């Protein structure tokens, strides 16, 4: 580890810190329906949409209506995207003449983008037409991100309000998230990316003759526009197979910085929005502090593990000071790869700028574990916030009794009904991750997809289902996922991870909104103190650790200790 490396890392976190408050306040204004900076320009457009769709923006929905609207939109998005992929050969903007996407891959991809996962069992530059990339994938990048934000805002309202049955209008929240937040920032960012040399064209691939005289195809397309929302919406699905390790997606050190900054900014600012809307900015900062501590610890651990390198290679005469450079872009080095790897998994982004499968045992453990913790550091746009709130409710319940009162969070009593839905939500990740991994580990044709033998192979399967169920989308590499089994199983894992989680969360929102908001007193369990940060970290780590420790022990943990003992797989 170097001082420069840590400086780079700290500078990025400081930059994110600087935008949290202004962006958070802006979003609070947007979701409260107040006049904001962009209202003169966008308000007429917004009203036009409502008129067109017949939405009465003053009419709010109960939790069930809100959730059903969200599910309907997601289903429509899935059908649209699935249709585009299956029919892309007949659709315009297909200069390379790519064939229709096969059914199982189209299912997997459509689910993947609708659930904000962006797991890619295909290589973009050799599978998807420009139309599929733009009208199919990029559109869903916006919709899935806006959906996540809407859910988080609805849950936030449940804490802010007292004894009401409505938590907002999904169509309004969703439209505002897209129109006022995602679109303007994406536009700005796409232009910056173009200025740095990221391609933005509808042309076909270029063909070049290399110095050796070989023919090389250089894939091009509308990359910059997709790159912007890919990061802002914590989607992570790259235009190219190599994702952000590809020079056209991530041409410079600055673009690398901008990538990481973009994924962190909205998710982090939304936590501030939460604090603002529930009337306790301090609560927002408390949650942010929890996220930051765990995330920075994750970055540090990956960074440390990678600079420590592999003692076996050291014994073979490699300079140990180089650390582990396998699978990394030399342009970015260990610090920026470590930062990217931890952030992309602490979030629900899933874009990568290096190969996670090539990280050391410990280095690979961290991204996997961060996803398994539920992607709450700070997590996907919206989904990270509601995931963190579920953890906060759980912490308040377990430890809150210790102060001798029925536990309450932000003045809302946490009782049997809430606990039922919290447990339903918490059950989803282990069910999807461990269940599918265990089944895959026992199916010979599923094991055949594994790229490496030994515990690393198990890590590949475990990572794939972790990434899918967590709606992350990053891959460990090695696993050949484009098979009917993985396309289907991963698709189901993504669906379950997104919707089976968010429906109970929305039920919690409905239940909490109806409760009276209690005043705080000295007897109230304090949830905005350093002690609560510690408690929350403890609960997240212990609960996550207890669920996944046995599986991790058989994968990355054994790899780590075996490497120290001079054995690799």
């Amino acid at each position, binding site marked *: 580890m170097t001082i420069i490396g840590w400086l780079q890392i700290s500078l990025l976190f400081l930059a994110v810190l600087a935008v949290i408050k202004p962006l958070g306040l802006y979003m609070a204004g947007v979701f409260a329906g107040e006049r904001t900076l962009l209202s003169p320009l966008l308000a007429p457009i917004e009203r036009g949409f409502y008129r067109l769709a017949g939405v009465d923006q003053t009419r709010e929905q109960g939790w069930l209506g809100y959730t059903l609207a969200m599910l309907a939109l997601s289903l429509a998005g899935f059908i649209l995207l699935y249709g585009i992929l299956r029919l892309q050969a007949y659709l315009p903007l297909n200069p390379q003449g790519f064939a229709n996407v096969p059914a199982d891959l189209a299912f997997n991809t459509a689910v993947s983008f609708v659930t904000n996962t962006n797991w890619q069992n295909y290589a973009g530059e050799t599978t998807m037409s420009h139309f599929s990339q733009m009208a199919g994938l990029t559109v869903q990048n916006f919709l899935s991100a806006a959906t996540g934000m809407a859910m988080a805002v609805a849950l936030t309202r449940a804490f802010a309000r007292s004894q009401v049955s409505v938590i907002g209008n999904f169509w309004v929240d969703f439209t505002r998230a897209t129109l006022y937040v995602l679109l303007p920032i994406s536009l700005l960012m796409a232009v910056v990316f173009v200025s740095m040399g990221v391609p933005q064209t509808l042309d076909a691939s270029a063909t070049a003759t290399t110095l050796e005289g070989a023919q090389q195809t250089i894939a091009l397309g509308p990359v910059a526009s997709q790159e912007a929302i890919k990061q802002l919406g914590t989607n992570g699905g790259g235009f190219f197979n190599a994702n952000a390790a590809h020079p056209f997606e991530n041409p410079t050190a600055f673009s690398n910085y901008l990538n990481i900054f973009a994924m962190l900014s909205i998710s982090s600012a939304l936590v501030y929005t939460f604090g603002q809307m529930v009337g306790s900015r301090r609560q927002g900062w408390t949650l942010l502090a929890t996220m930051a501590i765990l995330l920075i610890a994750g970055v540090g651990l990956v960074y440390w593990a990678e600079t420590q390198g592999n003692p076996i290679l050291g014994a073979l005469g490699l300079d140990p000071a180089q650390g582990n450079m396998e699978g990394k872009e030399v342009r970015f080095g260990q610090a920026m790869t470590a930062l990217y790897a931890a952030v992309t998994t602490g979030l629900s982004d899933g874009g990568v700028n290096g190969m996670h499968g090539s990280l050391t045992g410990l280095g690979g453990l961290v991204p996997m574990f961060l996803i398994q913790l539920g992607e709450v550091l700070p997590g996907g746009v919206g989904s990270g916030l509601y995931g963190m709130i579920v953890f906060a409710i759980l912490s308040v319940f377990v430890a809150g009794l210790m102060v001798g009162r029925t536990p309450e969070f932000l003045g809302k009593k946490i*009782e049997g009904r809430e*606990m039922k839905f919290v447990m339903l939500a918490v059950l989803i990740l282990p069910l999807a991750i461990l269940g599918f991994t265990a089944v895959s580990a*026992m199916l010979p044709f599923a094991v055949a997809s594994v790229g490496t033998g030994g515990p690393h192979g198990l890590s590949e399967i475990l990572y794939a289902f972790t990434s899918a169920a967590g709606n992350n989308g990053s891959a460990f590499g090695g696993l050949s996922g484009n098979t009917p089994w993985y396309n289907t199983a991963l698709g189901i894992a993504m669906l379950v991870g997104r919707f089976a989680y968010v429906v109970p969360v929305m039920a919690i929102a409905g239940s909490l909104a109806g409760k009276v908001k209690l005043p705080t007193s000295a007897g109230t369990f304090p949830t905005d103190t350093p002690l609560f940060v510690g408690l929350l970290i403890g609960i997240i780590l212990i609960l996550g650790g*207890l669920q996944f420790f046995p599986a991790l022990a*058989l994968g990355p943990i*054994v790899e780590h200790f075996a490497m120290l003992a001079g054995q690799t797989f």
Partner: protein
Amino acid sequence: MSHKPVAPSLVDPAILIPAARDAVLKLDPRKLVRNPVIFVTEAVAVVVTVLFLRDLWARPAEAGFSGQIAAWLWFTVIFATFAEAVAEGRGRAQADSLKRTKSDLTARRLAANGEIEPIPATMLKIGDVVIVEAGELIPSDGEVVEGAASVNESAITGESAPVIRESGGDRSAVTGGTQVLSDMIKVKITVAPGSSFVDRMIGLIEGAQRQKTPNEIALSILLSGLTLIFLFVAVTIWGLAGYSGTVLSVTVLAALLVTLIPTTIGGLLSAIGIAGMDRLVRFNVIATSGRAVEAAGDVDTLLLDKTGTITFGNRMATDFVAISDVTPGEVAEAALLASLADDTPEGRSIAALATGEYGFKAPTREADAVVPFAAETRLSGVDLAGRRLRKGAVDAVLKFAGIAHSDAPAEFHQAVERIARTGGTPLAVADGSRLLGVIHLKDVVKPGIKERFAALRAMGIRTVMVTGDNPVTAAAIASEAGVDDFLAQATPEDKLAFIRREQQGGRLIAMCGDGTNDAPALAQADVGVAMQTGTQAAREAANMVDLDSSPTKLIEIVEIGKQLLMTRGSLTTFSIANDVAKYFAIIPALFVATYPALDALNIMGLSSPQSAILSAVIFNALIIVALIPLALKGVPYRAAAASSLLRRNLLIYGLGGLVLPFAGIKAIDVAVTALNLV
């Protein structure tokens, strides 16, 4: 006084022996299914027992290990049922003495035609009227409809002095099992058989009829959810291990599962609830539902009657103020003499102050004439050795002395005003036409009550004083007692309105009362405590009855409610934190044969995989027994702000729960190895 709350000994064989028998009876899966965590443990124990029997026959070499695991799994279940049985046993011991008084009673029912027919007490219905004479036991809870009698209620309250029960008014309620000492009363039965207070109390303590409280249900959901998660972890680990060619036996997976699911809190949960009820009973409070006890822990505002709770109830003399050339001693002497024949508490307090503080002795000479207090004259006094000593209301005494109001010295007016302003009552003292001074009578706040209110405030509980006094007097006493707010000149309607207003703001209110006019407020309050001496209406409306009829009890009730919740939370935290160490014992043990490198996780240095697994299972079982005393007694309670309570309990039960099992499992491993058990 009432019998003080004395906890029965934890190692009383009279409780432990029947509890051991009950613990075995409770293994019935139909009963155990109410407790999902322990039910799963029992199911797993059955499976491992079957495997042990198979091993005995097919693989005798492994039977020693699976046999021991099976045995300890059964111990785990039995320890859990034993904890519940002990808690029930202790509660039953409290209830049994009451129960005994109830059985074999014969009631004399007044039939419609006016005849008296003997009938077993258990056959009495609501509305029946029975006749009870001196020496007889009252057959069931009811209301006196005719007559008055002195009743010995010591069986219920422990108070040996008899109390008067009479028809009409606020003292008409009688309790089954208490004895009429004099006279004859007609009692109208107000409860159905089996639902009198004693019956209800027994029902709340005995597990079979015990309803889970809301918080208990929520906690059970958490524990069931965790059990489901770990069931899933244990099942999938078999598949994951299969990938690397490790075949895990069902026995070790069973061990893994049982050590991970929260058996500690699962096993102790109902014992904690029962013990909470039992603690309440020991404080002579009967709750009609467990829900009320929990609500007590959540209370935000205590509505306390001034009289009897905050003050002693009678105004007492605290000072003699002399005017002009009179010395305070002269005033004291005059006041003492004027109060000689005054037998009211106020008069006695004047005499006590004069003899105590000023050292006067009551004269032996009989008074020439006694002027008793009368509503028209509003003064009292004596004529003694030619002196005409009077004390009483200021204007009455001035009139007696023949002094016009405006002629009284300014000093006198100032003293009177000062006393009135601070909520006291001024009494003027005169000797004939000579005005001597003023007696300061005031409502004396009970010693120590201010500190208790401060402690409550630290816990976030507001205290509101309710009084019939005027606002000036109320404010003075409120500030002296340190209450947060007061309701002056409060009518029962005011109380009800106040409670509703507070509840609309989301606050939980506790109050106590005894009169029929208190009933609506008692019913509206989240925790309503009726006095045992109160009317039947009040007792029906309340969700708790205080057998000692002590209004201060409300504070203890809140503390018991809080302690109950704290105990649950602490043991839940402890139970979950324990899992970390168990993983470090079991995971390396499961896989070290396949991946020797994983021995690095064996940070406790346990001697062998089998010993590691067995030690974890043994620790898991023994910790339940070790924590039974804590579950029954409750975690130490202290009045403090939530943040400091949290810090303290998190340190003890969170961090302690994390660290303790490392030491415990290691110690058991050393013992297991030394004894060559595996």
